[in-house]
């Protein structure tokens, strides 16, 4: 009982992770999901919002093939770990045309297609906001 680092005391928090990194910076594409899973496991209500190049991670065929490092776990596996921990995924609908994505191209792990205004609402109403 004396070593506090072993114990969890956090209250429930709301966290938004804004994922702007995509396949052009693959080394930045695993840790946000890992951190999201940890925070969700610590009672945080975690929402992860894909925008800018981050939407490419939601395109069928991309996260299944992408790894943050050679020989590592695929990004979709990190995404599924976060989902299993309770993280909700939102994707920026206005970003889709810039990456020539259609609704049918979006992976099943995405919970909602959202507007920029909905991202603004999430940011303004959350306890913590992280950008990757």
């Amino acid at each position, binding site marked *: 009982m004396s*070593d506090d680092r072993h*114990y*969890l005391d956090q209250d429930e928090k709301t966290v938004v992770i804004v994922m702007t990194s995509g396949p052009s910076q693959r080394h930045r594409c695993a840790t946000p999901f890992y951190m999201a899973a940890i925070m969700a*496991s610590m009672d945080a209500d975690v929402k992860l919002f894909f925008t800018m190049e981050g939407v490419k991670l939601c395109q069928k065929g991309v996260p299944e093939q992408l790894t943050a490092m050679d020989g590592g*776990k695929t990004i979709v596996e990190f995404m599924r770990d976060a989902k299993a921990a309770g993280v909700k995924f939102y994707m920026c609908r206005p970003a889709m045309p810039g990456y020539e994505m259609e609704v049918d191209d979006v992976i099943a792990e995405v919970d909602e297609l959202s507007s920029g205004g909905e991202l603004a609402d999430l940011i303004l109403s959350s306890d913590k906001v992280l950008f990757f």
Partner: protein
Amino acid sequence: MECNGCEFRPELYYDAEFQIWVRIEEQGELAVGMTDISQSIAGKIMHVRVRRPGTARPAGKPVATIESAKWAGPVPNLFDCTIASANIEVLEHPALLNHQPYAAWIARVAPAQTVEQALVGLVTGDAAWAGYQARCVRDSITCKRLPA
């Protein structure tokens, strides 16, 4: 008993995905740990953190968090309970979960209702064995037990 090398203990109680096991202890407490399936998926476990003893945990709120180099996630909780104690040995040496997943319990909890009521939503015995094998086959899980 084992499937794809993953050990199974028929006397324990399990969640539907066989992430955790639950064992009846003395004084109305239940011990909670990770299955061989879970430790195989996680890989070498580097950090374990448990909700502070005395904390009430409603069903659905994790008992602990687990981190390996490639996986992070909760130790799920399926019934209302209060954390009674944490296994200090596991907190100090998390890889024990990889070496001895059924001996290395993570936390002991006191269920809010009776032990029997707490275990209603879990599976055990033959039904658990069938489900355990199905999970191993469905997700192509093979045991990756680390040597002690």
